């Protein structure tokens, strides 16, 4: 055979059996390969391929809304989703509930040495799919590798950029006594899906995380023309934390009605077993909205017209209260306070 000058050969990324190693974060060839063969391939777009230290985005109209969120969920893959789509939905939702249209995301990955590339590929594909569905583009990214034992597989931080047209902005301090609180669907699905996985609980019907991008639902709500005061997605800390934040920001009390708060029967049963309260559990595809009383039916109808808001309900009302207490009328007929959770929500033992 005649001598042939070979091109510099790099073994392709072994997506079947390969694992992340320290060289994938070192700035050398291996890192470039990981980025081109995995991230750029799935996230492909013109901004990402500019190849400069920063990404230049086109001029846009409106005020900029920005939000950032780090995702450290365990297990990484759970019924109804994974850390990849979750990291897109979480940030898209934070931008969307400001009333803005989310357009761009950045993504930072911290990978643990030894993490299977096969799983990483699954996560990246899931992110790409979620971004596409939500209509956002991943325009910048970063990857670092930490030594084995210093991470939990994968951590993903995403930052979202969106644009807000002129006019009144939504804000947690705009709620007045009389305003009405709406919720877009069942509480607790995400948190219970994760916890039942961790605790090895199995149910006849598996509980799926509700992780979803809410910008479509938000657009429908904004289009209804209802006088919205604030929207927020009750993630960590659940509805209880979100409603307390708003009541303190606005200096009002909020009264909720437990009978009107939708909770799936399976979630309720799991909460019973684990000693948890659905009000404190994280959601990843739900929002609460507060609007002027006269517009509440209009807003409710708009929410219910969207697939992600089918089970929307009016769940409470703001009242005058200098203590800013959140109270709930229980289904049982009594009243109690709804407070932030202290510490972690821990199952009771007795």
């Amino acid at each position: 055979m005649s001598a042939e000058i070979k091109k510099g050969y790099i073994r392709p990324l072994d997506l079947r059996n390969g694992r992340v190693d320290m060289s994938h974060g070192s700035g050398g060839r291996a890192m470039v390969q990981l980025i081109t063969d995995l991230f750029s391939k799935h996230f492909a777009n013109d901004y990402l391929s500019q190849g400069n230290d920063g990404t230049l985005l086109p001029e846009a109209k409106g005020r900029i809304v920005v939000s950032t969120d780090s995702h450290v969920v365990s297990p990484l893959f759970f019924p109804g989703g994974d850390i990849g789509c979750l990291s897109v939905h979480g940030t898209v939702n934070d931008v969307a509930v400001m009333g803005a249209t989310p357009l761009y995301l950045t993504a930072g990955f911290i990978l643990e040495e030894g993490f299977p590339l096969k799983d990483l590929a699954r996560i990246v594909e899931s992110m790409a799919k979620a971004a596409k569905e939500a209509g956002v583009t991943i325009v910048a990214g970063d990857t670092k590798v930490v030594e084995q034992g210093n991470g939990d597989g994968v951590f993903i931080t995403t930052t979202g950029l969106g644009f807000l047209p002129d006019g009144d902005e939504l804000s947690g301090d705009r709620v007045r006594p009389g305003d009405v609180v709406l919720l877009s669907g069942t509480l607790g699905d995400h948190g219970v899906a994760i916890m039942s996985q961790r605790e090895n609980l199995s149910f006849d019907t598996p509980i799926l995380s509700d992780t979803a991008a809410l910008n479509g639902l938000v657009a429908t709500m904004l289009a209804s023309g209802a006088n919205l005061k604030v929207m927020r997605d009750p993630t960590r800390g659940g509805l209880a934390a979100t409603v307390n934040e708003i009541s303190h920001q606005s200096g009002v009390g909020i009264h909720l009605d437990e009978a009107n708060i939708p909770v799936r029967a399976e979630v309720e049963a799991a909460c019973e077993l684990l000693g948890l309260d659905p009000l404190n559990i994280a959601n990843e595809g739900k929002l609460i909205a507060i609007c002027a009383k006269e517009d509440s039916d209009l807003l409710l109808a708009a929410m219910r017209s969207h697939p992600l808001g089918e089970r929307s309900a009016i769940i409470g009302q703001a009242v005058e209260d200098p203590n800013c207490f959140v109270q709930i009328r229980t289904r049982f007929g009594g009243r109690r306070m709804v407070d932030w959770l202290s510490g972690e929500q821990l199952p009771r033992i007795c």
Partner: protein
Amino acid sequence: MKYVDEFRDGQLAQGLARAIAAEALPDRRYNFMEFCGGHTHAISRYGVPDLLPSNVRMIHGPGCPVCVLPIGRIDLAIMLALEKGVILCTYADTLRVPASGRLSLMRAKARGGDIRMVYSVTDAIKIARDNPNKEVVFFAIGFETTTPPTAEAIRQADSEGMKNFSVLCCHVLTPSAIINILESPEVRVLGTVPLDGFVGPAHVSTVIGSRPYEFFAEEYRKPVVIAGFEPLDVMQAILMLIRQVNEGRAEVENEFTRAVTPDGNLKAQKLVSEVFELRRTFEWRGLGEVPYSALKIRGQYAQLDAERRFNLEYKPVPDNKSCECGAILRGLKKPIDCKLFGTVCTPEDPMGSCMVSSEGACAAHYSYGRYKDAEVTL
């Protein structure tokens, strides 16, 4: 989950509320103690006091396993983790209980103690199997409900000849605590705590049965109604207590017949008495030393008893001077009577044990009932 909803039905609750209001005599007061933290939680969580007339008052008793753990016991657990280098396995609730030197198990964990949260003693056994070169200690707390699983684990570890597993036993007994409250001078002589009856424990009674309560119903003339942990159970029990008081009866009645029998679970009782024996005395947080109120591991299983294995010596440590947990557990005071309530002492940074578990009187009032204090001061 239909089963659960049946016991939380708002309409049934209204019906019971009407019956209670109709039968409670307007010219007398009714003070009932719910012994169990599970009842305290249900009462606060579902807003039961709202459904009671103003002359029926519920007093939160000492039946919250975390609340009655004295500082000295937590100190022992912390010492095992920090100084003896054991893997300490514990239920989540105990992690935040304040101990000496501003420590808690949670803080000891942050200082490098290998402290692991488990859901059952079986998890602890598994950890011991997975770490054959480490000493693994299970911090066993709780009333009669959690005792049989601990007994079973000790027997199993013994028959398997496990070399690295032991139990720090802090199991306590319900009837002795109730008697201690009834014997206290405030109740017996001074009458400063008017106690008209007890809502008896649910899960505990499934194990010990309803018979153990007969003694003090008779001896102290206090009616007892054993009730399930659902809010409707509690309402029904309150109604039954009111009837007993009105009729001058002091009997043990059982609202929770769907689970409690007079003799309880004999198999579990036998297991427990095989592995454990009575301690002569045990310190309860809030109640002090209570004779024959707790269990220790029998000599036959000495190598599985962390106290003997590590030569632990118990040192009682007094509570924060301003903490009123003791008086609150006895029904002498209410959480708002404590100067520290809601200011220095909150569920985020508990000073006393009643603020730790959601079953504790202070924590329950802080998280669920505080709005009522505001209504008074407004």
